[in-house]
C-alpha cells in the first residue's frame, strides 16, 4: 500500500527536477520491511523488526550528478528535495572536468516480482525462532559431536518493494522477498578452537529454508568442525594441484573477477574507498586465464540473492560473460560507464535503500560449469588439496593479490580424497589463479553473500558460486 501512495510523489519529483533545469531525472520509492530473530548459545535475543520507507531522487544537470533523499514523504518537502538535487549538481561545476551522460538503453516499463510460494509476510518472530530452535536442536549441547561454546545464529526475512520512474520513460515496480541466514559457530576441542561463518539465502518466501536445506547444512558444518579439530594434519608444502569447491570458486570469482570488472572501478570512480582495478578500459580482449577460465555474472537466476531482472536505472539486466575462455570479455556497466565505453548498459546498477544512490554491483558471480563429474575431476589429481570451505580471506584494492584460508580441506593422493588438512592458505595473484585452471566439474552450487561497496557503504545481497575448479602447479602458503 505504501508504495502506491508514493508513486505520485515520485512522478512529481521527476517533473519538478526537469522544470528546475535537470536534463535527466529519476525517482525511486523504496519500502523495506525486515523481521529478524537472533539466538546466542541457545538463548533467544529480543526479536527485531525494521521498516524503511522513503524516496531517492537523482538528476543530471549541466553534466553533473546530484542525489537527494528523505523519508519525510510530504509533497512540499519532496519538491524541495528535487530542486535541491539540481542545485547540488550545478554547485559541483567548479570541480567538474568530465561531464556525465547516460547511454541510450531502452527504458523498461515493467512490474515484476520474485517468485515465492509462502508469502514472506508470514515470517513472524515465532516462525523465525522455530527455525533457529530446529538448528539448535541439531548442534546444541554437543549433539553434532563437538562442543560449540559460541553459537550466534541470525535469521532474517525481508521484503523490498520499489517503484522507479525516470525522465527517459522507464517505470518499474518490483517486489523482492528474501530469506537470509548468518551463523557464527565456534568449536572447541582440547584447548584449540575453530570458527565457521556461514551465510545462506535466496529470494523467495518461507519455502527457502527447506529449499536450501538450512537446518541440515548448519548441522553438517558443525560436525565438520569437530573433524577439523580432531583429525586435520599439516598441508603439503611442495607444488601441488588444488581443487576449489563451489564455495571457493565462487568467492574467487567474486573478488578477483567480478570486482575488477566493475566499469566504475576500471574508470577510477571508487578510487578513494573500494579502490580501482588492475584492468584498464583497454583491457577488453586481454588474456588473463587459461581457456578453462570462464566466469559470469547473471542477475536473472531465479531464487538467487542477486535476482534483479530490471536494474535501478530502469534497464533490463542480462547475463554478463566476464571472462570467456580466459579472455577479459565484458565489464559490468551502468548507463554512465556504458556511454563512456560506447556501449549500452548491461543493467548492473543497484541501490540497497532509498537513501543510497544506485552504483554498479555484481548480482550472482560464478565460475561456469565444465563437463567433468566431481569424481572424474578428483581422479585427475595426483597430489593435491581440496579447499572445501574458507574462513579468512582478503584481496588488495586492485584485485590482484588475494588470500583464501581454508577451514575444511582434504588431501588428495592419486585421485582419491584422503584425510583433512589444517588451514591451508592460497595466497596468489589473479592471473596466476585463473591461468592455472585445468578443468571444471558440472556440479554447480551457490552461497549467499553480502557484497560491500560504495560510500556510504551499501551491503548488497549476492550469490557466489561455481563448480569444483581444478588448479594445477600451485604452492600453498605465502612467500
Amino acid at each position, binding site marked *: 500500500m505504501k508504495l502506491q501512495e508514493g508513486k505520485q510523489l515520485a512522478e512529481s519529483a521527476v517533473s519538478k527536477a526537469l522544470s528546475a533545469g535537470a536534463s535527466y531525472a529519476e525517482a525511486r520509492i523504496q519500502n523495506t520491511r525486515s523481521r529478524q530473530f537472533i539466538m546466542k548459545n541457545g538463548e533467544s535475543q529480543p526479536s527485531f*523488526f525494521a521498516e524503511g520507507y522513503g524516496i531517492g531522487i537523482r538528476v543530471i544537470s549541466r553534466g553533473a550528478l546530484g542525489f537527494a533523499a528523505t*523519508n*519525510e514523504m510530504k509533497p512540499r518537502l519532496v519538491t524541495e528535495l528535487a530542486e535541491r538535487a539540481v542545485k547540488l549538481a550545478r554547485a559541483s561545476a567548479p*570541480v567538474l572536468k568530465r561531464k556525465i551522460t547516460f547511454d541510450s538503453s531502452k527504458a523498461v516499463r515493467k512490474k515484476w516480482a520474485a517468485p515465492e510460494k509462502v508469502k514472506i509476510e508470514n515470517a513472524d518472530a515465532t516462525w523465525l525462532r522455530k527455525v533457529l530452535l530446529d538448528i539448535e536442536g541439531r548442534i546444541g549441547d554437543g549433539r553434532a559431536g563437538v562442543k560449540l561454546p559460541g553459537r550466534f545464529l541470525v535469521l532474517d526475512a525481508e521484503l523490498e518493494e520499489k517503484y522507479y520512474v525516470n525522465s527517459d520513460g522507464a517505470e518499474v515496480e518490483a517486489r523482492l522477498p528474501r530469506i537470509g541466514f548468518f551463523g557464527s559457530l565456534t568449536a572447541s576441542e582440547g584447548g584449540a578452537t575453530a*570458527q565457521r561463518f556461514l551465510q545462506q539465502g535466496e529470494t523467495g518466501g518461507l519455502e527457502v529454508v527447506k529449499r536450501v536445506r538450512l537446518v541440515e547444512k548448519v548441522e553438517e558444518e558443525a560436525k565438520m568442525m569437530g573433524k577439523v579439530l580432531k583429525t586435520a594434519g599439516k598441508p603439503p608444502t611442495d607444488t601441488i594441484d588444488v581443487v576449489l569447491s563451489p564455495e571457493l570458486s565462487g568467492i574467487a570469482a567474486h573478488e578477483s573477477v567480478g570486482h575488477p570488472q566493475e566499469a566504475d572501478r576500471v574508470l577510477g*570512480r*571508487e578510487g578513494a574507498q573500494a579502490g580501482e582495478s588492475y584492468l584498464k578500459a583497454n583491457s577488453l580482449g586481454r588474456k588473463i586465464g587459461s581457456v578453462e577460465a570462464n566466469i559470469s555474472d547473471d542477475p536473472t537466476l531465479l531464487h538467487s540473492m542477486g535476482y534483479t531482472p530490471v536494474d535501478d536505472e530502469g534497464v533490463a539486466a542480462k547475463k554478463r560473460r566476464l571472462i570467456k575462455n580466459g579472455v577479459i570479455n565484458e565489464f559490468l556497466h551502468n548507463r554512465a560507464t556504458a556511454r563512456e565505453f560506447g556501449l549500452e548498459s548491461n543493467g548492473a546498477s543497484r541501490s540497497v535503500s532509498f537513501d543510497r544512490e544506485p552504483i554498479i554491483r555484481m548480482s550472482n558471480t560464478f565460475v561456469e560449469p565444465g563437463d567433468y563429474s566431481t569424481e572424474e575431476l578428483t581422479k585427475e589429481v595426483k597430489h593435491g588439496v581440496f579447499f572445501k570451505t574458507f574462513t579468512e580471506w582478503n584481496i588488495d584494492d586492485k584485485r590482484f*593479490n588475494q588470500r583464501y584460508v581454508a577451514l575444511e580441506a582434504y588431501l588428495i593422493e592419486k585421485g582419491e580424497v584422503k584425510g583433512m588438512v589444517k588451514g591451508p592458505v592460497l595466497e596468489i595473484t589473479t592471473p596466476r589463479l585463473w591461468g592455472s585452471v585445468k578443468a571444471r566439474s558440472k556440479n554447480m552450487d551457490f552461497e549467499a553473500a553480502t557484497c560491500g561497496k560504495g560510500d556510504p557503504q551499501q551491503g548488497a545481497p549476492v550469490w557466489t558460486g561455481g563448480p569444483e575448479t581444478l588448479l594445477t602447479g600451485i604452492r600453498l602458503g605465502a612467500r
Partner: protein
Amino acid sequence: MIVLDLEALNEDAVSTAKRLGAEDAIALTARVRDRMIRFANSSVTTANHVEEAELMVYLTKNKKRAIASTSNLESSSVKRFVRDLFDSLKGLPESEYVSLPDRASKYSPSTLGFDRKLVEVGEELPEFAKTAISASLAAGGNRSAGVIDAGTIWYAILTSTGTKGSDSRTSITLNIRSFAEKDASGHGLSCSSTLAGFNPEEAGSRAGRDAKKMRGASEPQPGAYQVLLSPTVAANIVETVGMAASAFSVDAGTSYLVEKLGKKVADESFNLTDHGTVKGGLGGRVFDDEGTQTRSTPVIQNGILKTYFHNLTTAKKWKTKSTGSAGLVTPHGWNYEVGAGDSSYEEMVKEMRRGIILTSNWYTRFKNYRTGEFSTVPRDGAYLVENGRVTRPLKGMRAGDDLPRMFSSVQLLSKDREWIEWWEVDTPTLCPWMLMDGVKITRAYE
C-alpha cells in the same frame, strides 16, 4: 528540511506502549542531515544530500522483549507500529531480561562534538574538494579520488520510567587518495567535529606527498618485521579490539578477550579508553540506547583488561554495572582513545632496525575471532626502514598476526595523535603512531 519534532515522536511511542500495557518502553529517535561530495580523477562524480529520521522502540512485557525501528514517522503510523510491536510479544519466549532503572535521568545536549557552523555546510563542499585536489597535485600526485562528508545528527530519548534527554553531533571528514603512477598512491584524512578543525589542504598534501614517494615501489622480502602503523592503520586494528571487548562478543565466542578480565592483554604502554562524549570526538552521545549515562571507560590500562562493554542485560549476567555502552542487543564503544606515548615520529623511525612503515590499509579479515588471528592488506604509502633510515617504497604485501601477540609487542607510541574515521574505521578513534615488533609480512605467489 525535515521538521519532525523528535520529542513529540518519542512521547507518542512511549504513551502508546504504556496504554497497551508494556512494562518497559524506550523510544529513541535520530534525525540525520548528511551532505557528501565525491570525486575521482580530480573531477566531481556526485553530490548527495540526505535528510532522514528514524524511530527505534524497545518494549517488554512478562520478560518478553522486542525491538523495532521505522522511518515511517507519521503519527498514525507510529501508533500502528508500536501496536504491531506490542502484539508481536505474544508469540515470543522469555529472554534475558533486566528492567529499566526506576530512577529517571534527565540529559541536556553536550557541547562537545557539536559545531553549529557545520549544520548548514553544503555549498562549500566543492570548494573544499578543489582545495584538497590542488594540494595533492602540488605535492606530487597526478590525480585524486576522494569523498567529503559533512554529517549532523540529532538524538532524543524517552523511557517509560521518565528518563528523557536529547543530544547532537556534527562531523566533517575528508578521505583522499592521490595517484602518481602505476601502483604509486598516497592516502590522506582529515576528520573533525568542527569546521575550524577541518583541513582539506593538509590531507590533500599528505596524499600527494606519499603518492610521489611511492614511485618505483617494489615488493618486500617476506618475513617478520617491526611495523610502524600510522594512526589510520592503528585505528583499524584498535577497532577490532573494541569489538572484542563487547560482552556480547565474549558471550558469543567471537572475542579473543574471553577470560582475560584483569589480565595482561597488551604491552604496559598501551592504554585504551572509550568516551561517550569527548572533546574532538566525532561520535557518541550523553546517553546510551537504554538511557544510561555514557561515560569515559578505561578498557585497557597499562596493558591490563579492566572491563568489557556492558548494557543492562550483559551487566546482570556478568554481575556488574552497565558501562553506558548499550546497544540494546550488542554493547559497543562510542569514541576510542589510545593513550599517547612520548616519541616523535622521527624518533620512532630511528628505533627501527628492519621495519616497514604502513600508512593505510584495508580488508582486515579474521581467520578466528576467538584466537584473534587475522590479516590485512596495506595500501598507499609503505616504506622499508633499515637501521633507522627509510630506504625504499614497498608494495604488494599482506600483514598478518594475532591480536594478543601483536599488542604484546607494542614498542613505542607517538606523542602526536589524530582522530580517525573513514571507510575502514566506523568508531571514531584518537590514535597515535604505533611501533610493533614481529609482524608477519607475506607476498602472493605469482
